[in-house]
């Protein structure tokens, strides 16, 4: 099909040349000038989108236009636009009279920090950014090209929804995009940035991509808006409450982060992009690094409190461990009992997963399992080594969790870790109890290097719980038994003597050890059995 269309295009372009012979030279010159002028005019029109009035309205809402966003996102002068002259084909409701070159989306490729990215940016000033058939085709085109060469896709979403005038054409367009999203999943990284409304069918494209980010106070994601909600369920809710950035970053977990405004969001996308490999066949990027890999981190020696029930912030550990304290956290406000995000170790991008005792004692529950699992799978898909910091008292018990299906959700994290073939380095900082110990990239799940800090306790459960089961008929001596249990199990030795941890390391030397190991694991070769795809417990 591609070949054919290219042929057709060249045939059209050759037409004027053919006519040259038959007509007088002067008219030919005029025609050439006219065409050149038309190209120029159309280009100018395309650059203005829906016109100055609509651009001003967009600005008034605190939002930038589609092209302004691209300009901020990519390296200056690197944007190459595709399909600027494309137009919609709708003839109903008088639509044939209202056409804008490029229609309601700007697509193309560019560079971010010198590396190729494909992107689309929906233009709210043209028909409210609504999705027409050509709009969808433009998006699908750049996605296919991105997969062809292996480069990430960034979508800047700002669309009122389907182009109702086009009817089922518009729905078909959505489905084409969904299919392309799924095909690209795991081949190239896909990032969605929601910068305006995104409702109905439109929400599923971001949901299929790897990361969804939002802009505070100006972006919304929902299946149906507040009016329909009111009509159907009689529930009164504002746009912001229903699908604002806060809802999706704190409560639903649909979005992976939110930024203050358009400028802030786009600047941060550049930072994130810098961490990512271009495709699943590229290695995790290694960027020039100022931070010595052998840096000793004295503060880690005291980060774990002496009192084993006292909380500390695992993010303190992460920030002091990684290069320059640069950490791009994914889902910072959702399921805070697990911390996930991108960082660099000696310049190489790594994914960091850590239980955070500061929140809910760092336990694994439904939300944290899902959050962790999706991140681990992203890292594995794109060759990013995973550093796991373990301080987990176990899975959260109780009816709320059991009814919610903690078993199948917890299994997602287990599945993700077990399936991952990228380098996996695990550090047990304190507790590693029960099934949660197994899950958190244990040796048994093909962890490459598993370390324990001197404060580590690897056991089936804590002393109190264990004694209440083991000595249920000897309540008087509970304290004595607890002491006994603590002495036996609340330390790293039981795991170390069995080879379940490779070494007990001094916390301040953790950075050095991890950097050495990552270097060594660069040539790791591990393949899962060939299969169509596994069946992760969704």
């Amino acid at each position, binding site marked *: 099909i591609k070949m054919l269309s290219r042929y057709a295009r060249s045939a059209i372009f050759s037409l004027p040349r053919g006519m040259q012979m038959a007509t007088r030279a002067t008219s030919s010159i005029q025609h050439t000038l006219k065409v050149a002028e038309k190209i120029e005019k159309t280009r100018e029109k395309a650059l203005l989108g829906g016109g100055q009035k609509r651009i001003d309205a967009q600005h008034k809402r*605190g939002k930038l236009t589609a092209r302004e966003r691209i300009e901020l996102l990519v390296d200056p002068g690197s944007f190459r636009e595709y399909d600027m002259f494309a137009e919609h084909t709708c003839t109903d409701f008088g639509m044939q009279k209202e056409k804008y070159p490029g229609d309601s989306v700007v697509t193309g490729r560019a560079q971010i920090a010198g*590396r190729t990215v494909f992107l689309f940016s929906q233009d709210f000033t043209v028909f409210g950014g609504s999705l027409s058939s050509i709009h969808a085709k433009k998006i699908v085109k750049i996605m296919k090209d991105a997969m062809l060469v292996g480069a990430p896709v960034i979508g800047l979403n700002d669309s009122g929804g389907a182009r109702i005038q086009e009817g089922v054409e518009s729905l078909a367009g959505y489905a084409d995009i969904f299919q392309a999203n799924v095909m690209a999943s795991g081949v190239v990284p896909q990032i969605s940035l929601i910068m305006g409304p995104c409702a109905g069918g439109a929400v599923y494209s971001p949901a299929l991509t790897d990361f969804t980010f939002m802009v505070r106070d100006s972006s919304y994601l929902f299946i149906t808006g507040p009016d329909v909600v009111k009509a159907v369920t009689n529930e009164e809710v504002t746009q912001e409450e229903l699908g604002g950035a806060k809802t999706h970053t704190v409560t639903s977990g649909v979005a992976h982060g939110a930024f203050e405004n358009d*400028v802030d969001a786009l600047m941060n996308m550049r930072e994130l992009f810098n961490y990512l490999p271009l495709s699943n066949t590229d290695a995790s990027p290694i*960027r020039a690094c100022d931070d010595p890999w052998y840096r000793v981190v004295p*503060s880690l020696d005291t980060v774990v409190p*002496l*009192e084993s029930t006292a909380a500390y912030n695992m993010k303190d550990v992460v920030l002091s461990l990684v290069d320059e304290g640069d950490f791009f956290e994914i889902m910072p406000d959702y399921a805070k009992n697990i911390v996930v995000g991108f960082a660099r170790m000696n310049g190489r991008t790594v994914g960091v997963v850590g239980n955070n005792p500061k929140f809910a004692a760092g336990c694994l529950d439904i939300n944290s399992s899902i959050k962790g699992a999706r991140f681990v799978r992203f890292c594995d898909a794109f060759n990013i080594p995973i550093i796991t910091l373990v301080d987990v008292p176990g899975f959260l018990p109780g009816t709320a969790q059991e009814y919610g299906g903690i078993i199948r959700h917890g299994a997602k994290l287990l599945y993700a870790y077990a399936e991952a073939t990228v380098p996996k380095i695990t550090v047990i900082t304190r507790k590693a109890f029960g099934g949660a110990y197994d899950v958190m990239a244990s040796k048994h799940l093909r962890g490459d290097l598993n370390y324990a800090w001197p404060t580590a306790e690897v056991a089936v459960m804590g002393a109190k719980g264990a004694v209440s089961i083991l000595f249920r008929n000897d309540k008087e001596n509970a304290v004595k038994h607890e002491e006994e249990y603590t002495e036996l199990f609340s330390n790293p030795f039981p795991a170390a003597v069995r080879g379940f941890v490779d070494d007990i390391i001094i916390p301040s030397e953790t950075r050095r050890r991890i950097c050495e190991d990552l270097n060594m694991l660069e040539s790791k070769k591990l393949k899962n059995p060939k299969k169509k795809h596994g069946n992760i417990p969704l």
Partner: protein
Amino acid sequence: LRMRVLACVRCVAHKGFGQVRLASAASQKKYVDLREDRSIYRTDPINHDEPKFDKILIANRGEIACRVIKTARAMGIKTVAVHSDVDSNALHVRMADEAVCVGPAPTNQSYLRVDRILQAVKDTGAQAVHPGYGFLSENTLFAADLEKIGVTFVGPNSKAISDMGDKINSKKIATAAKVNMIPGHDGEIADEDMCVKVANEIGYPVMIKASAGGGGKGMRCAWNDKQAREFFNLSKHEALSFFGDDRMLVEKFVDNPRHIEMQILCDKHGHALWLNERECSIQRRNQKVIEEAPSSFVTPEMRRAMGEQSVQLARAVGYDSAGTIEFLVDGKRNFYFLEMNTRLQVEHPITESITGIDIVQQMLRVAYGHKLNLTQEQVPLEGWAFESRVYAEDPHRGFGLPSVGRLSKYVEPKHIAGVRCDSGVREGSEISIYYDPLICKLVTHGADRPTALARMRDALDGYVIRGVTHNIPLLRDICQEQRFLEGRITTKYLPEVYPEGFQGAKLTPEEEETVLSLAAALNARKIARSKQFKNQSRQQSTYVDPYTITYKFITELPVDDEGTSAKQVPVHVHFENGDEKEARVSINGKTLAISGDMNLAHPIVSLKTDGKPMTTQIVSKKAGEITVVYRGTNFKVSVLPEHAQHYVKHMLPKPKLDLSSVLISPMPGAIKSVLVKVGDMVSEGQQLLVIEAMKMQNGLHAAKTGKVKTVTVKEGQTVDEGELLVELE
């Protein structure tokens, strides 16, 4: 109550995995600087043939405990630290040979528990106790208790402590010893008539104050008879409620005074020395901020007179340790006795710097019973020394509101010549609400005042503290303030120089340009580096060396709280000949050369701007924003690509949280009491709860009338700054 002395000796041979703890403890020791640089103590060095205590206990924490341990170790004396449970990993515990836990975090349950500390002394067999300052250092009962069990108190005899502890009594003794006194009535003032009579005898203005007073409580200055009557009654009431003792004094009020004190050193054989003065006028709320020795105001004659009077007083009370006599000095160099501190003072290091005498060593010697080896003529006065008290506090609020946190990054500027850091913390230490927020006493010594001061500025620039708010911005600003440079200081210095409170370093237009250029250069380096991949092999044919590009930014200094918009300044950066160490910055039509290793990982970045050396720190670098330290103050500079200039103006300001319906914790602290519950109606200005931080109690009030919707805290709970406490409907 069950004794909780856990005698958890350091390297806790604790439950089975003692070995691991030992290993980790041993590794942790590496970060404790145990090398003793004793070259600063050049006068009367340690004589190892002299008999000494075998083991002492230090009944204190933090920097002063570390300070005492260092000298004791150098003298060959074993040390025992006491600590609260939260301090189990503290530096002083790590440094000591043994450590005993004496209770939970609050000081009245640990460091102030005489019974537990006495038990620790008995258990460890310490022969003497050094109390440091604060806590039990001026507790005569403690000193007497020690005496009973035959243990030496490293400090003056308890009679001297109690004689000097009472203001009326100390005045009587000082008058008898012919020490200059502030004109006043030496005795209690019975009633307001007597107050007026005495005030007229002395001459206005007069200070009316409580005998038992301190910290500015029960103290008022009267300028006429009417005020004298009114203030006498007010202060008397206040004194009764604060101290349970309403005896009152009246004395001359010294206008624009300086606070200058004399360090003395005495032994048990009647010898007494004065070790020169310290100028401590830079104060806020009666707490010292920057001290220096000697004072630029004191002449040799005055110094001798002050010293001799101090020694006379010491002899009169039978003083037999290190101590300090505080004087108030007026503009005509008249000095008046204020009080005597019968302990080692916080600011003793500056005296050590200019005399070369290790005061702790001498305290331990004389406590053992040795005579002082030096004569007065042998006490040197060499060079000049400054001490900056680096506190974990926010200097923008009342010159210092306590702050807490974990020192996530901490580097002392010890690499600079003539710098001494007395601290009790290290990277990873926690500054908690329970104790004094002092991080470090930063001391610099130089041949003369300008040298010592220049070193102080360098040291403050090179001091890396992350994780807590600290007062280095204020300290650094004072160090180049004109009045301070000229030595024209009084105890009113801070309110006079900063009448609106400290608002951060005020930059001149040139300095602003420097900060913006610096931020732009560092950001250019950051962006250039983001293109330096080592394993991205595609599209090499169009690769452009990122150091050959000109980076065009639009920069902006932070806006103040009022939201007034700062002006956007375009800045262009390129690297000379593609050399990443040579940035050329164009700003406002000028070109600035910034050269040096623009390392984005090191906490301290030493660069040259147009050839002039300068030290900066990168505090944080986020997308489009970089925070650099300049002259001690953090500047959060927005650095965006040039084309963003037209777009930033469209960004809407964020809706502000309605602060009237929520009560936010203004500082970290413990909730002392909660006065309302959910559903209560409260009126505007009503006190909702009381928060205690660093020994201060603060009432928090409702900003509007309404019904209590939520109360998120309980009594006794500790809260962070900015935490939501109470919400109104």
